[in-house]
């Protein structure tokens, strides 16, 4: 489903990714772990098409298509979703309005009927309840004045509503207490399905106690230094990044 080959990327002339290779199949959950500054967030922004992230070499295929050619909204329409590490505040735009605008934009892109207000309300209420999100939060302006935990739950709500085929979760666990972490993990687990792939980017192993990945990759200095099964995450927790990076050097 997702094929990253020899990906080199830079920001303002500074090389950040130095040849990333990664292959994710349908239904698989992969974790990308790494220390600060290893290029984890850059990887998620390059995949989602953020401006200012230049691809210098390599290619990314998504369902056999050249992903890097597409505009960000086209990637979204093709089923790519990024849960942001720092969700953005948009004053004056209600959370419901935003969600409905996004869902209908995607539905239009896929040639499906748009949902009217009542149909949408039903969808949203049901999915919000599962994530412990009340009507009150849905009525507030998008992410404005939300706590860190509320912002992350809101990202998970969007994930649940937009039902992407490839979800990238960028440090979704940061800033969450253990209860919120469990809620988020349950939300993600509920979305696991044979045709949906996930890429979970995280610094810490603790999220992986709750979302057990099929594969774990260690990203450092802009490259994947090691890959393995879910047990690799535990090894990292025990030994720290230093040893792994030392081994590879």
């Amino acid at each position: 489903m997702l094929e990253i080959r020899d990906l080199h990327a830079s920001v303002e002339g500074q090389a950040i990714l130095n040849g990333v290779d990664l292959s994710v199949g349908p239904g698989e959950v992969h974790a990308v772990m790494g220390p600060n500054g290893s290029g984890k967030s850059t990887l998620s922004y390059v995949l989602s098409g953020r401006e200012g992230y230049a691809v210098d070499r390599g290619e990314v295929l998504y369902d056999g298509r050249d992903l890097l050619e597409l505009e960000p909204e086209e990637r979204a329409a093709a089923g790519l979703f990024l849960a942001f590490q720092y969700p953005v505040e948009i004053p004056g735009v209600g959370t419901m309005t935003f969600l409905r605008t996004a869902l209908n934009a995607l539905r239009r892109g896929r040639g499906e009927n748009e949902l009217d207000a009542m149909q949408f309300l039903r969808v949203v209420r049901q999915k919000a309840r599962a994530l412990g999100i009340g009507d009150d939060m849905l009525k507030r302006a998008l992410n404005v004045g939300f706590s860190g935990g509320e912002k992350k739950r809101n990202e998970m709500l969007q994930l649940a509503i937009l039902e992407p085929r490839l979800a990238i979760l960028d440090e979704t666990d940061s800033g969450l207490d253990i209860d919120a972490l469990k809620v988020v993990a349950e939300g993600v687990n509920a979305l696991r399905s044979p045709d949906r792939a996930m890429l979970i980017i995280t610094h810490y192993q603790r999220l992986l106690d709750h979302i057990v990945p099929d594969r774990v990759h260690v990203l450092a200095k802009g490259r994947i230094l090691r890959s393995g099964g879910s047990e690799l995450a535990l090894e990292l927790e025990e030994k720290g990044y230093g040893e792994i990076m030392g081994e590879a050097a």
Partner: protein
Amino acid sequence: MSRVAAETVEQVRSLGDRYKYGFVTDIESEQAPKGLNEDIVRFISAIKDEPEWLLEWRLEAFRHWQTMTEPNWAKLGIPMIDYQDAYYYSAPKQKEGPKSLDEVDPELLATYDKLGIPLREQEMLAGVAVDAVFDSVSVATTFKAKLEEHGVIFCPISEAVQNHPELVRKYLGSVVPYTDNFFATLNSAVFTDGSFVFVPKGVRCPMELSTYFRINAANTGQFERTLIIAEDSSYVSYLEGCTAPMRDEHQLHAAVVELVALDDAEIKYSTVQNWYPGDENGVGGIFNFVTKRGACIGARSKISWTQVETGSAITWKYPSCMLHGADSVGEFYSIAITNNYQQADTGTKMVHMGPRSRSRVISKGISAGRASNAYRGLVKMLPGAASARNYTQCDSLLIGSKCGAHTFPYIESQNRSARVEHEATTSKIDDDQLFYCRQRGIGEEEAVSLIVNGFCREVLQQLPMEFAVEAQKLVGISLEGSVG
């Protein structure tokens, strides 16, 4: 609101043209000769069969106007206007004034239909009465009979001059005297039509009143005059909308609006101004020089202005409140959007005279392309304004790097117990916000429209529901092509 916003965005998408009101109606019209002199003033007065006192008033205004020069203090580049090279009266030709809607020229009804303003009462927006002004005359007023049952007078001002001369004579020029300013004085001399509203004591007007202004004829100035009087403990909500065809030459629009609120009365006045703004190179468009002022004469009276200004090549307009009454309240909510080469210098004046009078100003300026957008506001506390309060908030949003936003607050206080607060912010549409929207599948233009609508929300919420939708659409359309 959320439902409206989403629908709006969909509607914006479905509208291909940037300015869809730019068509011309092919209708025979009757015009005064080109140019401006005393004979033209007499012609206009005669064609409307006006009483002597009104002709005299017009002539005094005209003579005074000849001694005046155009104001040049605004942050606007105004090309020379040749006041002799325009028509001051143009009316669609009809044998007699229409007695009912059945007699209105079908071509005119079709024009208003096309503008989304159906004039046949059975098709009307529920609960909205409309006066339609086409070039210099009012062509139709709906729901008159129903309003009369409540004692509310809603008619063209030319008709009010005939049927209610005592009211017109008492209040015309009482808030904006004919000596007020260059454009108001010009209007006093040559005003052709406009709306008149009178709400008697204790009456809450049962429906929204609305006037729809349309400039059609070429080289024609539009000079309408609106007068609204709310007697003790009455309430009225009034809305005006404006459009004009796309023409390469500029056209002048110089209106005057006067509002009078007596004890405990409330007037809510909303404007959705969408005159033709000119093309993306700054060719054509309406010059909009408007004087709007309300007098809160009575104790506890309230006047609230809400404006959404998206059109016109140049906008020069400062809807104001003269707060005479004790505990009177003035409000000004404004959205001004300028794109391409549009220029706007707009704001308000809140003049506090009554004790404990309060005013609130919320201004949202949005600038894109090479446009310039200035907020100019005066808050004046006179010696009688003990414990008066004002709160002003003006926010500017910039899209792109070639536009400008300016804020000119003037504060004068002659009473130590009065309080004035002013807050101002300037921001740009944030790349993070745009990327976030786009990552969720929302295209760039739709995202800008969404973010700008959010920025304007406090003001949009003040509009009557029926018009909030229209206004949100306009916000999106006005900014098309402003990113990327």
